[in-house]
């Protein structure tokens, strides 16, 4: 509630299909963006889809404050996200933003960013921010198969990228937890930042607990308002139910009742 929220029509600059079900959408703000931090999200108004009534929360994939450019990485899973995937240059997209807390900056420079599915979206923006703080992030990306993996070159510019695929078609075969970087007694990182499917994040939270690491997880609870007004998006924490949309989406895994 400390950061001012806005509601604005953005203009679609381009929609690029990066895999069969992932698109990257570049959006232009009418003027300049306010401060936006990695881990924050926007609430997208989906137009003219009879079965999409509420807004859809989507993470900020990248943002250029001065240029007023916001980038979203969207996985098409249902009617709302499929509609986003078909946006054309010049179309308007109404957003409520910026929402939620953000990934805290680490006190160490040994960080691992673990993404699964569309959970990789906020990690690019986080990686860039870490670099600004002089930290070279490493990425561990999990996907079903090579075909489900987006181009990693932007991530590679920021730091090393490790990949696991369930079918072994790229990188290590298995889930992220099966990657060699995770399979040492003494991990060479102190903090995990993760966003992705809940089972994956739970495994990482447990891993972090076992190895006494910090672990920041970004939840994707379903939301109605996105601004703390409805209390629909709660997650159970040691301090009771907290709203994913304003107290999160990023939580210290130790605080969650996982």
């Amino acid at each position, binding site marked *: 509630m400390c950061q001012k929220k806005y509601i604005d029509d953005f203009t679609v600059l381009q929609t690029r299909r990066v895999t069969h079900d992932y698109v990257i959408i570049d959006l232009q703000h009418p003027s300049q963006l306010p401060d936006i931090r990695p881990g924050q999200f926007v609430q997208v108004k989906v137009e003219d889809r*009879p079965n999409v009534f509420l807004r859809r929360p989507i993470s900020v994939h990248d943002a250029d404050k001065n240029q007023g450019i916001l980038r979203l990485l969207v996985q098409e899973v249902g009617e709302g996200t499929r509609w986003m995937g078909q946006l054309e240059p010049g179309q308007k997209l109404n957003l409520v933003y910026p929402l939620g807390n953000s990934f805290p900056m680490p006190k160490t420079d040994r960080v691992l960013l673990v993404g699964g599915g569309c959970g990789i979206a906020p990690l690019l923006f986080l990686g860039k921010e870490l670099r600004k703080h002089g930290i070279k992030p490493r990425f561990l990306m999990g996907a079903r198969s090579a075909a489900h993996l987006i181009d990693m070159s932007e991530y590679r510019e920021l730091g090393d990228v490790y990949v696991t695929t369930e079918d072994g078609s790229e990188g290590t075969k298995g889930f992220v937890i099966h990657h060699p970087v995770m399979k040492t007694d003494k991990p060479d990182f102190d903090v995990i930042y993760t966003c992705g499917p809940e089972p994956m994040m739970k495994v990482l939270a447990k891993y972090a607990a076992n190895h006494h690491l910090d672990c920041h997880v970004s939840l994707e609870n379903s939301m109605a308002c996105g601004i703390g007004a*409805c209390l629909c998006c709660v997650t159970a924490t040691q301090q009771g*139910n907290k709203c994913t949309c304003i107290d999160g989406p990023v939580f210290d895994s130790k605080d969650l009742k996982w």
Partner: protein
Amino acid sequence: MVNLSVDLNGLQLKNPVMTASGTYGYGEEYNDFYDINQLGGIIVKGTTLNHREGNAYPRMAETPMGMLNAVGLQNKGVEYFATTINPRISHFTTNVLVNVSGSTIEEYVATAERIASLPNIPGIELNISCPNVKEGGMAFGTSCPSAVAVVEAVRQVFPRHLMVKLSPNVTNIVEIAKGVEGAGADSVSLINTLLGMAIDAEKQRPMLSTITGGLSGPAVKPVALRMVWQVAREVKIPVVGLGGISNATDAIEFILAGASAIQVGTANFVDPMVCVKIIDGIRDYMIRHQVNDIKELVGALRC
């Protein structure tokens, strides 16, 4: 200049547009988007005597032109409201009403009494219709004797505006409206959510942790409008209409059906600016139809 102000049985609203409890937080959440003092009033979250954690996640499911919720009255209790939240929102110049809930009559009474001690709160909305709590809540609102009993008890301790929020999950809402009128309510608001359910067919599981939840949004508008019309013809106290209102036309429909004021709930989630647009739209409508005073529209439906 058209006159939008409403005298709700003593409660002065600068216009008929209020926000519905549980959908507008404590007002602060929306103050970034516009000055919420433009509103006729806001009704803050359902408040109970003691702290409540509410129901487990998931609490929400999207439905055709609507949504189900099962928040279950999560709140920190009336004492926390009085000492921590209220000071933070007492600078609002619009009417801030507190939605009061409970599991027993004693709880309702104690909560209302505590609110009565807060001079900046001009009224309460007594929620006898919440479908998302196991005990009490909706049960009070679905039987006439129990609705009357809780309103009579609260009336004893609450001297300011007492709005009673009715449940639509009843055979005869008029009977209950008349009952609470007789018990001393200053106004009635309707409707609360319709009890509904959603299922994930692939997972073969309910979408809500509580299995059933409260339906709101445009889908319920026809039912809400019917109930407002039925009740407004039978009670003398003012009726506050809500249920699916998403634009000025919807608001006008409720006013024509007999509502002296309206509340906007779920629509705030879809468009945080919707209340301002509704106020502007009502004004435009009045100018276009040459109506000088909003009162002329209340119940003006030509049948």
